[in-house]
């Protein structure tokens, strides 16, 4: 058989062919295009439509943005410059409004010679939050985190330095009381003392102490009223205070809602559902119109503070639901394991349950924070001048009457920067805390 076969073969190659490169449709950009953009007719159609949309948007907005006029004192001046250089038909942005009014968009009516104070406060806040956010920062800087709220408060509102110090002393009192009493009388008594003694201190002692210290050594910086706060500074102050305050409150509410104690559970459920069931804007109007009815006669405090309290309560209800999701997602074995080790409720929560539950709820928590930060724009409806409020004020001035898009784009870009970086941080945290292998 093999003989006959061998005879029919007229030519046998005895050397290897050199390797040739794969066909051009199977490599590099062409292959990528074929696989990703033109794999089927529908796909190709979608690609073309998408590219057309992108082209349409860029070709309309691009020249308008790039050709924008930066150097003018009013919208009319902008138009004159445009008519002189580009002709009356051209449509270009008038970015000059940002150059003219950036200080209002960022700081509101805050005195311009004191701009360093909010900036420094932001830096101090960043320094305070860094050890919490990134574990590479040395642990000792956590003391800065504890001090940061008081320093920020003092820098923003100013006034006597003794006010934040006498307020902060309350926490020192609580800390010392817990340390001393829990050693001699047990941890429960220590905890009660750590709550009651600072309350007594704040109600009875801190006021006179502040007065005495202030009279003895009147050290302070210029006081700035909350009404001067505005623009992004106001959004950031409301947003960040509410974020910092709502997280612990939300965790407590979530624990209360998961609790076996009927009264605690019911009140937490009612609180959370009522807060979540009603839009924030209604709560803000409540803060503006109704809070005076609920408080003892004669008490009257600042609208900004009321808004911070309302936004905090609002956000804490949402955080509570997110954390509750995390608590529910934890396998029952974790709770049972903690119980079988003989840990007390707070120990098991602190050491076993919360670290895992919070890890699960990080994306939700950060989403809530992003939502909260965006929701700070609603304060414009109760008369606070946030960036959107200022965009209305700027438009109301004769110089800039009729300017829309430039302000909206600037405000949108600022919010995007803040919220997008928060979202990215949450992704970073998720990856860092990821324990399972996927």
């Amino acid at each position, binding site marked *: 058989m093999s003989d006959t076969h061998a005879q029919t073969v007229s030519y046998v190659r005895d050397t290897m062919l050199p390797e040739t490169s794969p066909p051009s449709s199977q490599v590099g950009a062409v292959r990528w295009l074929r696989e990703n953009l033109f794999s089927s007719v529908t796909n190709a159609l*979608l*690609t073309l439509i998408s590219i057309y949309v992108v082209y349409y948007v860029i070709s309309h907005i691009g020249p308008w943005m790039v050709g924008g006029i930066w150097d003018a004192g009013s919208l009319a001046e902008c138009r004159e410059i445009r008519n002189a250089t580009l002709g009356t038909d051209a449509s270009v942005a008038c970015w000059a409004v940002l150059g003219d009014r950036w200080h209002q968009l960022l700081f509101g009516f805050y005195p311009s010679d004191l701009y360093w104070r909010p900036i420094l406060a932001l830096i101090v806040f960043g320094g305070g939050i860094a050890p919490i956010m990134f574990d590479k920062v040395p642990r000792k800087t956590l003391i800065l985190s504890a001090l940061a709220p008081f320093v920020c408060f003092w820098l923003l509102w100013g006034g006597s330095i003794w006010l934040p110090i006498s307020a902060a002393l309350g926490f020192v009192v609580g800390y010392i009381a817990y340390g001393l009493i829990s050693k001699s009388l047990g941890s429960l008594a220590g905890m009660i003392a750590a709550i009651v003694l600072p309350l007594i201190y704040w109600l009875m002692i801190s006021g006179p102490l502040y007065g005495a210290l202030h009279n003895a050594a009147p050290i302070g910086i210029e006081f700035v009223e909350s009404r001067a706060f505005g623009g992004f500074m106001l959004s950031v102050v409301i947003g960040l205070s509410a974020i910092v305050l709502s997280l612990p409150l939300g965790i407590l509410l979530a624990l209360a809602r998961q609790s076996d104690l009927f*009264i605690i559970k019911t009140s937490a459920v009612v609180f959370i559902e009522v807060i979540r069931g009603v839009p924030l804007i209604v709560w803000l109007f409540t803060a503006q119109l109704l809070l005076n009815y*609920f408080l003892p*006669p004669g008490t009257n405090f600042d609208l900004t503070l009321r808004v911070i309290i309302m936004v905090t309560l609002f956000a804490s209800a949402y955080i509570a639901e997110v954390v509750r999701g995390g608590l529910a997602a934890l396998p029952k074995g974790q709770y049972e394991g903690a119980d079988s080790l003989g840990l007390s409720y707070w120990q098991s929560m602190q050491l076993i349950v919360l670290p895992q539950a919070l890890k699960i709820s990080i994306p939700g928590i950060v989403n809530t924070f992003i939502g909260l930060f*965006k929701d700070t724009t609603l304060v414009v409806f109760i008369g606070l001048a946030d960036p959107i409020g200022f965009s209305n004020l700027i438009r109301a001035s004769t110089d800039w009457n009729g300017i829309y898009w430039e302000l909206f784009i600037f405000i*949108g870009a600022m919010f995007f920067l803040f919220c997008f970086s928060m979202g990215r941080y949450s992704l970073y945290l998720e990856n860092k805390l990821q324990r399972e292998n996927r």
Partner: protein
Amino acid sequence: MSAMTDPPKPAFRLSQLIYDTRYRSITIQVVAFALIAYGIWALVSNTIGNLADLGKDFDFGFLGQSAGYDINQMLIPYDNQDTHGRAALVGIANTLLVAVMGCVTALVIGVLAGVARLSKNWVVAKLMAVYVEGFRNIPLLLWILLIHAVVSEALPQPNAFRGADPSASMLLGDSVALTGRGFYFPRIGFTNSLSGTEAVAPREGYTAVASGGMDWLVILGVLAVSLVGIKLIRNRASRIQESTGVRPTTWYTQLGLLIIPTGIVLTVLGATIVTPYLKGFNFTEGMFLRSALVSLWVALSLYTGAFIAETVRAGILSVSKGQSEAAAALGMQPGRTMSLVILPQAMRVIIPPLISQFLNLTKNSSLALAVGYMDVRATLGGITIAQTGRELEGMLLLGAFYLTLSLVISGAMNIYNNSTKLMER
């Protein structure tokens, strides 16, 4: 043998209230209850005291008084002589209208964008990522203002459509007019209406057509009966398929059942399409969507759509790849894999956050304030409060409305959740 006796019971000591876990929970609850009761008592007594100081009382009687203000969009009949209560109802109807419209479009946009973001097509996926991130990271209020500015500033006013050589023209064969004042669409009118209100002639020399609520009820009733019929036909087909293995062809009976009865009713009622046309300085006839409604609707749909897109994406990603591989190994077609294997599992993940997005949309519709849309916050929580000075009562009713709405929806969601959740020990 000594007699069996119970071990001596230790007497109850007061310290057990704190240190014994059996009693501690009672202690904590009593303390908590006392604190909460005190808080509520303080709140109520402060309110009573403050109201008395201001010389006000707590009375919902204002709801029966004449409102005296006009509302520019009414789904139920209303004029300014009607009561504040009716004005509130008009506002509620407007809120529900924009909420339902927004939920439907947001769902469509969200599902499309969520699926498109998972597409292998790089351009489409990136474009959707830009859309989702852009809307998720910029406040809704800004989007509402921006879209309102586009709608009311960039679109031509109705008078631009006038004259021999108008600067603006209607779309889709002179049937749709997009103006800065609002959008005009064709509507369906009935020449033989059952309960014709305001019969009008679309043009001179045409038969008068009316818009009737009764007619729509009849049409919807017939349609519902047809749908039940279709369901029965399908069930019968499934039964036959299960016993014989062959599914009878039913699509033409289904189609016929869907179209023919409704078609007959429409013909009997004399349904005609009424297109808007210019009359004087404005368009008349047709369906009119006020620009406030349009911009609120578009902004809410696009904004919530971005969130729904993420929900849908997460739902689809949550179904592990093994599921679709197993379905393929069983020899299932891709379409059936999607509908029988992936979607049922993805739905369990998608539905709860989806419902809460719908709730968010409904609550966010209170931002209507920014564009002057007359929703319940604007009527009951705005003008009524300003006119009667009843902040407390007005805000309570407003809060109660939103609260009831969300409790009803989230109650329904909980029932669904419990019926679909995986059983654990």
